[in-house]
């Protein structure tokens, strides 16, 4: 494999300087995706700047009642954090639904956000892929696409985003904070991931050379009653074929507030705003939940062999919302 240099950063300015010091460098978090991609030849950086030792490994309450999650917090620590479990249970559940214990011990929040799709054409350098080699084509449209996108895709790319964590973060209006040589910045997660369009190789709006320093979760009382459910082709250690992060505030049988995000349906975590609109003010019953799911999935545009995902996602939304409503009624 290609030889590469490895450097360690110990503070944010140092990390930015190291990245900037030459061409073709990447930040390395837990390496649970980047190193795999290097082995597969998909990524061929000349230099890795290891940021896992940066002092960004804390989960702290913010003054307004939210949480600030450092970029190098491991998935394991995030899922185990008492405030995460209390205030945003769906986030802890989402993290625990991903990967394995060993991987979660290594994987970081910042790296999780930047992981790449597991589309088998993307990870096979002998095949065309617009995401890997812009303009080379997308074999998935005509080929294997059982676990590809049903929402927001384009003819240029139908891959799905693999993260579970990001689905829950999307439901809770998370904001990504980053640092650049020119100063800090912030991006709501829904703007952090950009639509596929005809540039599937451009996945985020993170400025070039920027270092993710953390994720801010705004206060969201509704999130205290939230759930993440993931369906996959085996019971563990597989990427989702459908997932839902949902939060529901019900009073007197009526939905006051709902949060809903979907995984494994699009190139990015999918905030189900149409469903949320349909739910708000509706009766908290199966009929309304189904109508909300249908409202969201009206835009679904499945491929010949992934239409099952529409039914799966619909059923999953209804099941999770029903569970939350039952919990609220108890």
């Amino acid at each position, binding site marked *: 494999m290609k030889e590469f240099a490895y450097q360690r950063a110990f503070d944010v300015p140092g990390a930015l300087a190291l990245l900037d010091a030459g061409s073709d460098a990447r930040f390395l978090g837990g390496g649970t995706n980047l190193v795999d991609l290097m082995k597969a030849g998909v990524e061929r950086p000349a230099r890795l700047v290891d940021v896992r030792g940066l002092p960004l490994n804390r989960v702290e309450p913010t003054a307004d009642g939210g949480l600030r999650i450092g970029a190098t917090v491991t998935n394991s620590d995030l899922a185990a954090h008492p405030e995460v479990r209390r205030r945003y249970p769906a986030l802890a559940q989402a993290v625990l639904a991903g990967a394995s214990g060993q991987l979660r011990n290594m994987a970081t929040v910042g790296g999780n956000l930047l992981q790449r799709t597991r589309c088998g054409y993307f990870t096979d350098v002998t095949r065309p892929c617009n995401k890997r080699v812009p303009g080379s084509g997308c074999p998935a449209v005509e080929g294997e696409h059982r676990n590809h996108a049903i929402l927001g895709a384009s003819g240029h790319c139908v891959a799905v985003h693999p993260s579970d964590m990001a689905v829950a973060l999307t439901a809770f209006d998370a904001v990504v904070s980053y640092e650049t040589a020119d100063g800090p910045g912030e991006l709501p997660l829904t703007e952090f991931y950009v639509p596929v369009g005809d540039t599937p190789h451009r996945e985020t709006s993170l400025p070039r050379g920027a270092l993710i320093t953390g994720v801010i979760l705004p206060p969201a009382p509704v999130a205290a009653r939230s759930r993440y459910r993931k369906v996959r082709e*085996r019971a563990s250690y597989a990427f989702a074929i459908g997932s839902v992060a949902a939060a529901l505030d019900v009073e007197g049988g009526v939905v006051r507030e709902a949060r809903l995000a979907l995984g494994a349906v699009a190139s990015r975590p999918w905030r189900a705003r149409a469903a949320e609109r349909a739910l708000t003010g509706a009766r908290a019953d199966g009929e309304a939940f189904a109508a909300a799911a249908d409202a969201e999935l009206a835009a679904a545009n499945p491929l010949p062999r992934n239409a099952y995902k529409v039914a799966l996602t619909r059923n999953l939304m209804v099941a999770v919302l029903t569970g939350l409503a039952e919990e609220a009624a108890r």
Partner: protein
Amino acid sequence: MTTVPTAREGSVGTAHTRVEGREKVTGAARYAGEVRFADLAHGWFVLSTVARGRVRSVETAGVLAMPGVLTVLHHGNAPRVDTGYIGFLGVPPDPSCAVFQHDRVPHLGWPVALVVAGTSEQAREAAEALVVRYEEEPHDTVFTGERPDAYDVDGHVPAVTGKGDLEAGLTASAVVVDAEYSTPEEHHHPMEPHAATARRDGGRLEVVDSNQGAAWVAGDLARLFSLDPASVRVRSEHVGGGFGSKGIRAHQVAAVMASTVLGRPVRVVMTRRQMFSLAGHRSPTAQRIRLGADADGRLRALEHRSVSATSTVYEFVEPSASVARAMYDAAAHHTANRVVRLDVPTPTWMRAPGEAPGSFALESAFDELAEKCGVDPIELRARNEPERGPVSGLPFSDRGLLACFREGARRFGWADRDPRPGLRREGRWLLGTGTAAASFPVMARPSTAAVTAEADGTFTVRISAADIGTGARTALTLVAADALETGPDRVRVRIGDSDFGPAMIAGGSMGTRSWAWAITAAAAGLRERLAAGTGVPPQGITVRSDTSAAVDALPPKERHSYGAQFAEVAVDTGTGEVRVRRMLGVFAPGRIVNPLTARNQFVGGMVWGISMALHEEAVRDAASGGHYGADLAGYHVATHADVPDVEAHWIDDPDPDDPVGIKGIGEIGIVGAAAAVANAVWHATGVRHRDLPIRPDRVLLSGAPGV
């Protein structure tokens, strides 16, 4: 208190941890890719990126200038080998192992070059930089059961058997099941990838390898390279799984070629991705079964037809239609195994070849027949117990099938089962149970062994056996201890070395039976010598055995292991998730040598059966002709969370007429397991799943009732 000495109790039948267990768990045991050699060079395969065509050019100049690169072998410069022979197992070699002999590319992932360099990283970087140009031809990789070009091929069993008038039998039947089943391409993927290091040591060729039979690989290498068999030594001390995939393959041949050319040791290791096209696999199958029965379920007609795929360079048959030849009789009884040739790698033996996919179809069809007849599935099998081999007409040596069902039903709680499907709910889950029968042939092959009485009172056994993770080394230690009437702590068993002479491979569930036979014979000879003799000289006393005559003299009978598989599943028809809640297997496996490792074999097979039922499937991309998602993230096997409660038991299964008493246990555990799961899914949902794996999308689209 005093203890009275008692007669020595035998070791066979008592639980022993693996004799090499400590080395394995501490990392002291070295596997083929870890054995150290001075001056070692590393070879890295370059595989074709087209599925059919010719290599037009291999542009080596730039690569030869890369750091550390020593040579690039390809069809233009590689040593020639001879594939025109009948190998150790009585069949010609799959020419897929004979790399770099011509410019033809018969499938995607075919080795077109080997880049050899000082380090494995240098070899890999250069291999990935090597430009190979192809003259590409249209490829044909799409397998279906309707291929008109499928034809009959005798594999390790005859292609076709038949008796009686099938159509008349079906017409006269009160109940008919006519159904098609399919199983996908499946891969062995042992944890340890294939790895070999070859070196020339004086006049000898030495290969350190990971394989299922050192003598087998040594014999084939000698034939391929036209060497004196005595000048080839293959060692395979520890093997991290084989499952049928570790015979003579491209990596050993390439390593021998490179070490010959360079005059230094060369190691070739397959990557996980390369294993998808270089290590063999189980062909997809398309099967059709027609059963005709009287209203009480007694069969009048049975037809099982199976189509599998092979490559364009070798005929390998997955003989799925052969299961019924030993299991069920009918006046009209027809079975046929056909193959179609595609531009894909050659399949090979994979745990229970034929029986695993064949039992899925046959035992699912029996469940369908039970449903149609309104007969309990176990009772249906009882009503169809054959008197003699349905095809061979031979008597059964013993037949423990119904005893397995009785014991399994008792342990599983089958008697309380309501046969109606789709009734049991628990929250979002529909629950169901299913059962299936299992059988696997009991065979033996000639083997040789040497047993030495050492001067210090201990014994050394030498046999070219292979312990591919099964615990064979430990089992043979127990067998030898009993045969020598001593304790296992006084017996050293040395295996995995072709210099120990010819012996059966670890395959076909024949290894332990064949090896134990040879060791027992040598030990008996040695005890006679010791009884007659005057003490042991410093060099010890060695007696050799060869079971060729004894194996040949075994009277022909239907000899099989049997089993009854039970599964309980939960199905969420809203998401398509299927979870096996418990699995129970009861086996009639002959004499059990080591209950600890035997249970491991049964449970391992059953877990694989769950995996086969629900997860495993190699997906081929029609456009490229290669695999999609060729890694263990894309090829799903069951995880721990998928196999919560798996129990294996066995019944007493003595065969006093058998000279060994040991049957095979390596494969029976997977047989019938997938059918038991599929039958349980039907019982849960009322929907038959005749295509494996039973994926969420298939369950979702099958129209099962929602919860």
